[in-house]
C-alpha cells in the first residue's frame, strides 16, 4: 500500500474502525510523515468527542432518523409496506361484501291464516263401503231402513261423535222412528255449520267425483259437478232432468215443482249404471262418490217446508 493509500485509513482512527494491520500501516506511516502525524493528532479531537458517553448513540440516532426520513421519501411505492397492506385490506373487505351479499339471509317466518280442510266430510267415507263384489247385496239392505242413511249422512265431528255415543245401541238407532225436526236441523247445521265452510270445502274438492247442490228459497235446485259425469234429477213420478252429461264446474239448475217432498239425484261417471239413493235432508251440501272409485252417487233429497 503506497503512502497515499495509507493516508486514507485516517478516517477509521477516531471511530476505531481499523484492524490491527491497518493500524500498523497507518501509525508506521505517521512516524515518517509529519503531515499525517498532524492529521492524526487532529483526529484526536473527533476521537474524544466520540468517546463522550452517549455521543455515539446520539449521532447514530440522528443519522438513523434522517436516513429513515430520506428512505421513506425516496423509496418507490412498491417497496413500501403500506400500499400493499392497504390493497390487501381493500381486497379482503371486497371479498367479505361479496360473500355477505351472496349468502341468503334467514327469511322471517311468515304466518298465513289458512282455512284447513276439515277431514270429516272428505276423509270419512259415507258409509263403510263393502267390497265392489258385495255392493249389490249390501245396498238393498240399507235402502229400506230410513234411519241408517241418516246416521251415515252425518259427516261432521258432532255427527260422528253422536254416532259413536250411540254406537252401543245400534239396533235402537236403527229402529228409531223418523227423526224429529230438531235432529234434522242439527244435521243441516252439521253439514256445514256455517255455510261458507261448505263453499270453501267444495272449492277444494275438484278432483273428487261428486257435486255440490243447493236448494234455493225459490225452489230452484242448483247442482255443480266437481267432476264430469252423467246427471239425472227426478221427483219420484216425473223426471225433472233427464240423464245427460254434466260438465265439471258448470251449474245445472232444475226447477222443483211446488209441493214436491223429495227429489232423487243420480250422478254417475258412466252412463247407464244406477244405484239405490241415500237419504239427505240438508238444503245444500256436497256429495262425494258413494262407491269409489266407480263414480256412483244416488241421493234422495228431502225438502224442508221452506224449500218445498
Amino acid at each position: 500500500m503506497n503512502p497515499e493509500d495509507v493516508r486514507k485509513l485516517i478516517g477509521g482512527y477516531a471511530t476505531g474502525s481499523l484492524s490491527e494491520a491497518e493500524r500498523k500501516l497507518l501509525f508506521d506511516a505517521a512516524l515518517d510523515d509529519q503531515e499525517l502525524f498532524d492529521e492524526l493528532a487532529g483526529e484526536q479531537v473527533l476521537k474524544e468527542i466520540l468517546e463522550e458517553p452517549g455521543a455515539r448513540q446520539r449521532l447514530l440516532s440522528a443519522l438513523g432518523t434522517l436516513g429513515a426520513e430520506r428512505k421513506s421519501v425516496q423509496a418507490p411505492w412498491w417497496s413500501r409496506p403500506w400500499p400493499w397492506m392497504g390493497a390487501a385490506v381493500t381486497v379482503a373487505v371486497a371479498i367479505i361484501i361479496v360473500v355477505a351479499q351472496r349468502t341468503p339471509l334467514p327469511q322471517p317466518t311468515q304466518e298465513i291464516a289458512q282455512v284447513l280442510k276439515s277431514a270429516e266430510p272428505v276423509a270419512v267415507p259415507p258409509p263403510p263401503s263393502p267390497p265392489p263384489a258385495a255392493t249389490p247385496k249390501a245396498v238393498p239392505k240399507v235402502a229400506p231402513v230410513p234411519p241408517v242413511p241418516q246416521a251415515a249422512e252425518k259427516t261432521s265431528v258432532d255427527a260422528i261423535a253422536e254416532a259413536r255415543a250411540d254406537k252401543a245401541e245400534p239396533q235402537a238407532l236403527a229402529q228409531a222412528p223418523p227423526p224429529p225436526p230438531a235432529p234434522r236441523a242439527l244435521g243441516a247445521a252439521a253439514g256445514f255449520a256455517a255455510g261458507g265452510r261448505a263453499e270453501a270445502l267444495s272449492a277444494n274438492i275438484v278432483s273428487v267425483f261428486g257435486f255440490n247442490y243447493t236448494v234455493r228459497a225459490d225452489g230452484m235446485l242448483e247442482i255443480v259437478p266437481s267432476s264430469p259425469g252423467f246427471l239425472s234429477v227426478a221427483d219420484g213420478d216425473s223426471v225433472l232432468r233427464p240423464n245427460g252429461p254434466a260438465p265439471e264446474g258448470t251449474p245445472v239448475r232444475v226447477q222443483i215443482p211446488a209441493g214436491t217432498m223429495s227429489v232423487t239425484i243420480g250422478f254417475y261417471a258412466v252412463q247407464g249404471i244406477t244405484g239405490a239413493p241415500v237419504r239427505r235432508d240438508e238444503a245444500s251440501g256436497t256429495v262425494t262418490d258413494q262407491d269409489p272409485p266407480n263414480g256412483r252417487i244416488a241421493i234422495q233429497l228431502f225438502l224442508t217446508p221452506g224449500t218445498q
Partner: protein
Amino acid sequence: MDRNEILEHLRARIVRFAASRLVGGAADGSAGDTPEDIAQEVLLVLHEKYPALDRAEDLVPLAIEIARFKILSARRKTVRRGEHTQVSVDDLPLAGGGPDPLEQAARRERLERLESALKELGDRCREIFSLKLQGLSFVDIQKQLKVGSLNTLYSWDFRCRKQLLEKLGGSWGEKQ
C-alpha cells in the same frame, strides 16, 4: 523498527506538532514550555508508564494523546501566568480532575456541530459513518455494503471525511 527507533521518530513528530500548536512565547521558547519540552515530557511519560509498549500502532496514538494534554496544559499555564500577578493564589480554586464547564460546553458544541454536519452528508457517507460508529471495521463495512474492493471503501471514507471536515470549517473544532 524497535522501540527506540519508534521513540526517536516520535520525538521529531511531536516537536514539530507542538511547534505548530503552541503560540507566542510557548512556541518560540521565550516563556514557558517549548516544543522540545513537550516532546520530552511525552517521552518521559512513555518511558515511565508504558515501558512494555514497543509497537508503533500502540505508541503513536498514545504519544499523540499525551502530547495534546501537554500542549493544553502549557496553554493553561501561560494564561495562569498572566493572571498570577493580579489574583492571590489563595483565591484560585483548585483545579478539578474532570473537564471544566468551559471545556464541557466546548465539547457539547462540537458534538452538535458534528451532528449537523453529518446530516448534510450524502447517503453513502452517512451510511459509512453510521457503520463506523456502530463499531464495524472496514472489512465488516465492505461486506455490509457489498463493496468489491477494500481500497474502494478506503477512498469513499477518505472523501467522506474530507467533506465532513469542510462542513466543519476545516477542523474538528479544537482551537488552533
